[in-house]
């Protein structure tokens, strides 16, 4: 029986006793020595049998209930500190396909429970994914499996997550035993290989013809007509769609923002469609897209993407209030997006929805935003690191090199690239704050504001100011998406609220004046009143 922090010790136990180097055998050893002693509660055995039957019968509603409600509640009741019974322990099941699906949940539970699963567990989980994808992709006719969409989404997302987690784990060399290190270079060297991950996702996309299906649907045609034998099945179609989002995440954590947005080209992310009914998928998509836009200095697009999903979350937030692993992730991503939105608004001030402003105010983002405007690089750094995804390197660290921890390298690199960008435009908020006060302002006068104490005719300050003004115009004129399915396309626009031009020695300033908005305020009060009214009527006196 093992608890969370027993893992490291256990690795050593296996090294001395029974460790064969073969992950499959090792895993068997592990199961035999620990699990068989543990009796399976009747309730769990019954559940597993029903689960298997439901999947065999393709009863999606029942499967969904078992997947979304029963499995988590049983996990909480019996397996908060242990793993679920391994496939060897549930001899009463002999459906091979069900066992693969069951093991997917089994390993996912291990990954969720222990933040740092053992190498064997990681490898076995990978091999099980291989079995699963081989089953789905190598079959000559579509496999007869019906799974709820939420499962399919979490399957793909978890697959990318476990790769990310493995890549992070692999890059940390100082906390590994010798045998783990050796395994990483030999038996497990091919496990969680980046090409394998890409191959799976691309194959799922190709098999389902999802790209062409989306294109045809977009132009008003019938996607069924191009779906092909596999893509006609909801199972393949949804896996294909979720794989596009999986690629978005995968490219993002490798720092390839161009490909990240490019793979979504058949999807119009701001449009509702038959694929947008899984909130976690919607939220995750917007998070990575918004982040990629921010890194491409497309602040307008980033702000639009974050705002629209944050408003959606606000409207539906009662759905995520209960504590579950799905909601934990949604709430974390929401927080991250508020941080990123705050950064974007400092760099590119722009009008956003009042209710989001209110959150930024209430949760004390304003103080940090003010610090960022005053060039506090530490706040930029902290906000970025909190808001950014966990970057990883696609390759293991050098084989015979120094024993060090390389897992921070990718995040450090992306942070530096971002901070370089911030440093280039660090003067702009100050300039903006002065320009805001005027409609016309001579260059010399502004230069004097910027460097108090200079003499009026000091040319050096004026020429420095001109550099900053050119930089202002350059940085605030960015590609903004206007229409069409490609998120990469767009037109150069100045989307920020303050703009100006220079006529020889005079700056002419154009500001955006926003008159008070009452609509939102009244709508909110009306809704509140209605709610109150409804509750009052429920009272029985």
């Amino acid at each position, binding site marked *: 029986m093992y608890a969370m922090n027993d893992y490291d010790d256990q690795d050593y136990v296996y090294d001395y006793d029974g460790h064969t180097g073969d992950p499959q055998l090792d895993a068997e050893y592990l199961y035999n020595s620990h699990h068989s002693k543990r009796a399976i509660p009747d309730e769990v055995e019954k559940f597993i049998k029903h689960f298997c039957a439901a999947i065999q019968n393709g009863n999606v509603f029942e499967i969904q209930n078992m997947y979304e409600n029963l499995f988590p509640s049983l996990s909480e009741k019996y397996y908060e500190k242990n793993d679920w019974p391994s496939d060897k322990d549930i001899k009463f099941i002999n459906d091979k396909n069900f066992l693969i699906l069951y093991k997917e949940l089994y390993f996912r539970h291990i990954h969720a429970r222990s933040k740092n699963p053992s190498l064997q567990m990681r490898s076995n989980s990978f091999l099980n994914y291989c079995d699963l994808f081989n089953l789905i992709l190598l079959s000559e006719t579509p496999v007869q499996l019906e799974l709820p969409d939420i499962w399919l989404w979490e399957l793909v997302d978890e697959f990318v997550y476990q790769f990310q987690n493995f890549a992070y784990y692999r890059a940390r060399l100082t906390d590994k035993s010798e045998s783990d290190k050796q395994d990483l270079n030999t038996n497990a060297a091919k496990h969680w290989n*980046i*090409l394998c991950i*890409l*191959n799976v996702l*691309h194959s799922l996309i190709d098999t389902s013809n999802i790209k062409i299906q989306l294109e045809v649907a977009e132009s008003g045609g019938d996607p069924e007509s191009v779906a092909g034998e596999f893509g006609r099945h909801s199972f393949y179609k949804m896996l294909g769609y979720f794989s596009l989002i999986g690629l978005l995440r995968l490219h993002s954590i*490798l*720092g*390839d*923002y*161009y*490909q990240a947005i*490019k793979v979504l080209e058949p999807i119009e992310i701001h449009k509702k469609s038959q694929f947008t009914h899984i909130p976690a998928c919607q939220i995750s998509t917007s998070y990575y897209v918004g982040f990629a836009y921010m*890194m*491409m*200095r*497309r602040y307008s697009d980033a702000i639009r993407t974050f705002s629209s999903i944050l408003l959606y979350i606000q409207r539906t937030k009662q759905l995520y209030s209960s504590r579950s692993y799905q909601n934990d992730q949604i709430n974390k991503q929401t927080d991250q997006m508020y941080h990123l939105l705050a950064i974007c608004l400092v760099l590119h001030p722009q*009008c956003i929805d009042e209710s989001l402003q209110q959150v930024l105010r209430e949760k004390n983002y304003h103080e940090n935003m003010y610090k960022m405007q005053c060039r506090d690089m530490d706040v930029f750094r902290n906000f970025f690191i909190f808001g950014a995804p966990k970057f990883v*390197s*696609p*390759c293991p660290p050098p084989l015979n090199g120094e024993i060090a921890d390389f897992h921070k*390298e990718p995040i450090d*690199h*992306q942070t530096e*690239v971002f901070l*370089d*960008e911030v440093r*280039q435009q660090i003067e702009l908020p100050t300039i903006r704050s002065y320009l805001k006060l005027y*409609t016309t302002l001579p260059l010399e006068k502004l230069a004097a504001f910027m460097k108090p104490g200079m003499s009026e005719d000091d040319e050096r300050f004026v020429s420095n100011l001109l*550099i*900053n003004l*050119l*930089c202002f*115009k*350059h940085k605030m*004129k960015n*590609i903004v998406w206007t229409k069409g399915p490609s998120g990469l396309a767009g037109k*150069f626009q*100045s989307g920020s*609220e303050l*703009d*100006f*031009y*220079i*006529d*020889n020695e005079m700056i*002419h300033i*154009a*500001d*955006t*004046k*926003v*008159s*008070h*908005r*009452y*609509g939102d305020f009244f*709508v909110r009060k*009306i*809704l509140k009143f*209605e709610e109150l009214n409804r509750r009052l009527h429920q009272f029985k006196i």
Partner: protein
Amino acid sequence: MDDGKELIIADILKSIERYNPDHLNILEAYVASQAKNNTYDLEANLAVLKLYQFNPNKLNYNITHLILLKALTNFPHTDFTLCKCLLLPAQMDDDTVKTIIYLADILESCDFALFWMKVGMTDFVANITGFYDSIRKFICHVVGITFQTIEKDYLVRLLGDIDGYALASWIKKYGWKDEGDLVFIASQDNNIKTKNITEKIEFESLAQLMAGCL
């Protein structure tokens, strides 16, 4: 490079083949041809950097330099940042890469006079056909969105102390007007003006709410 090869490259980039290191040779040759023939293909170049990221043992520094320099020629687009995000620690440690990043930093900050001074001290940009004019195009873009009228001497400095003949041709290219000491860029009143955002509420957006109150 003839069209046939470009077609092959487009096919490679479209599929999973883009991650196949066997294609590095053909893609690297394509980068070199972009440098020579003053053409540009960001997607192919990013694919090369990604192949280096996946296969650090195949890293080619000369090609890395060409890709980064080509990205400089496509300002004001943020291609350079996209390339930079894909660089490996080994590439970041390379002296030439550091210099190119420094040049990019100056360009991003719009300190053009400094840029011309620093770029004059390097020799690698000679490998990129049309490099200087691409940079001037970017500078003209920034001038074009910033100024209504600009001092001619200042404009000449921004463009790297070009001679009168070259200046005249840039002025002509962008449809600016030479007015003696000043150059008239464009009338900006129409592009850059104060915006007033007032609240507009559509009836449709409230219909449901109002219906609910009945």
